[in-house]
């Protein structure tokens, strides 16, 4: 069943349209992540769901009821903010119970719910402290606790981990994943950290300039992106994009092929129904990690820089055009000069000049 749905939802600030006709269904219990570059409208969309921003047009339903004009506190949502937004003058206990107090919940029940949430998040020893006396990670947990206490239908997170240091971020990421499993709650989570998106999400929604570019599981987006933007956005290091031209029916065997212009290499194409007419300019994408020594094709790359990370080796170099990145697992002896970067023709993705995927 769909817990939350957006239909043709738009948002304008004055004349500036920042959310454009968004359609989205979110299933109950799903962990949905909004990703996209800065300024694409992730926070705005989340705040519209929360009721903190008006919806200019379209419909928002939560739990089957239209919620466009409902007060934020009555939408069955709880939100965790990037800056935590804990009330600095209240103790952890008061912070967590505050919403319930305003909803008129009896005191005994508030206490019970606060204690339950505190137990789940191991906050019991901190209940009487003020937010100012907590570490970043603890504040984060209190902010999550404040959301849990309300038993919302939908949890909204806006970049909740971006103020934490790298180590704590990994730790809290795992905590949030566990919590989601344990509570079975519906979560919408905004981030621009890909690793967070890939590891946490059941479903990723990629946004660009107020529009949904693609929706899918992390692996769908990784293996089968709809367009060049999603292909470039998901995956790290970024996918390499090479200018190419559909070859004139000839790699000698007469099958379809494309010529990678920066390398002067022509590669056979298999399994594409919609390859444009010969001579058309297209873009070919290949992920850095798809290069391997056994590949059936090769690019001759002039090495410009090698990064030895221990677990992997990144080689940056170029043919006659832009820099490309080749990633090999483990430690590699590659250092200087030229590299014969081998890959399988089947691992290439093809995009029109407009960035649409050619399948």
């Amino acid at each position, binding site marked *: 069943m769909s817990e939350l749905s957006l239909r043709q939802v738009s948002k304008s600030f004055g004349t500036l349209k920042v959310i454009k006709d968004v359609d989205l269904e979110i299933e109950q219990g799903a962990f949905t992540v909004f990703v996209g570059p800065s300024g694409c409208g992730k926070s705005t969309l989340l*705040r519209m769901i*929360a*009721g*903190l921003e008006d919806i200019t047009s379209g419909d928002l339903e939560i739990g089957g009821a239209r919620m466009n004009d409902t*007060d*934020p*506190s*009555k939408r069955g*949502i*709880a*939100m965790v*903010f*990037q*800056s*935590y*937004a*804990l*009330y*600095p*003058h209240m103790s952890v206990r008061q912070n967590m119970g*505050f*919403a319930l107090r*305003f*909803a008129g919940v009896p005191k005994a029940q508030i206490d019970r719910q606060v204690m339950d949430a505190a137990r789940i998040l191991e906050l019991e020893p901190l209940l009487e402290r003020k937010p100012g006396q907590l570490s970043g990670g603890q504040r984060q947990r209190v902010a999550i606790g404040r959301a849990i206490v309300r038993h919302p239908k939908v949890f909204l997170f806006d970049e909740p981990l971006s103020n934490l240091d790298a180590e704590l971020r990994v730790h809290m990421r795992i905590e949030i994943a566990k919590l989601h499993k344990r509570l079975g709650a519906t979560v919408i989570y905004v981030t621009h950290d890909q690793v967070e998106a890939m590891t946490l999400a059941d479903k990723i929604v990629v946004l660009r300039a107020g529009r949904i570019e693609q929706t899918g599981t992390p692996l769908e987006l990784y293996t089968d992106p709809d367009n060049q933007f999603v292909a470039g956005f998901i995956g790290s290091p970024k996918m390499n994009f090479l200018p190419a031209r559909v070859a004139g029916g000839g790699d000698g065997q007469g099958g379809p092929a494309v010529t990678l212009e920066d390398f002067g290499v022509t590669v056979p194409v298999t399994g594409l129904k919609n390859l444009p007419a010969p001579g058309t300019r297209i873009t070919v994408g290949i992920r850095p990690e798809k290069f391997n020594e056994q590949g059936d094709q090769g690019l001759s790359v002039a090495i410009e820089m090698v990064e030895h990370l221990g677990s992997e080796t990144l080689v940056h170099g170029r043919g006659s055009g832009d820099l490309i990145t080749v990633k090999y697992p483990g430690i590699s002896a590659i250092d200087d000069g030229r590299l014969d970067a081998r890959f399988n023709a089947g691992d290439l993705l093809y995009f029109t000049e407009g960035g649409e995927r050619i399948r």
Partner: protein
Amino acid sequence: MDLYFQRLRGGLVYLFLITAAFLSIFPFLWMVLGATNTSADISRGKFGLGGALFDNIVSFLAFADVPLILWNSLKIALLTTLFTLAVASIAGYGFEIFRSRLRDRLYRVLLLTLMIPFAALMIPLFIMMGKLHLINTHWAVILPSIGSAFIIFYFRQSTKAFPLELRDAARVDGLKEWQIFLLIYVPVMRSTYAAAFVIVFMTAWNNYLWPLIVLQSNDTKTITLVVSSIASAYYPDYGAVMVSAILATLPTLIVFFLMQRQFVQGMLGSVK
């Protein structure tokens, strides 16, 4: 060599601070010592403890109904402060938080009023108060100072440090706008309030010109008016002047020392 210069610099800094401190404390000291001397001794410039404190107090008490005068001053200062803080903080918060087309234009007009000297407002204000039948009442002193553009400005500036996400969190928690203001904004900004309290209270307590104009009968007068009327008598009793001056200074001192910490914090910004 470096060490030598460092010491020299340190020494100079101390010398400067000591001089500055002495210059600020000297009038105060003079006032306190003067209160213990006879008028004649003070006129001669005697600098030292005398034995006339009691006489001075007596002649000061004879000059005016001191408890009433103090009460008048306190009442006016406290009410002015209370109303000013309420109005200015709501206005400053509103100006900073809520967007509207007219906001910035309105704000500019408000700031422009800071440039109008009080002398230019005195007569129209007096006429206004006359029409309202408020002359010779304390409201005539309190009302004109409530809408203080400067304090509104101060609150708006301080509100820039108020985290907007707190407002969002409170809205999600079910608070209405006025509850957000009272239950979140006010407590979070309390050092801003404390600093504003000190400023407004001191200004109101020390206010002289306007009360002089609108407070006409002896039973409505404030301490500053009494100090000046003793001092401007034909044969001023300087001993009594000093005693009254001490009384006029004390409350602001007390307020400042009580709120010193919050005052400094408020000046640095409420929210860290």
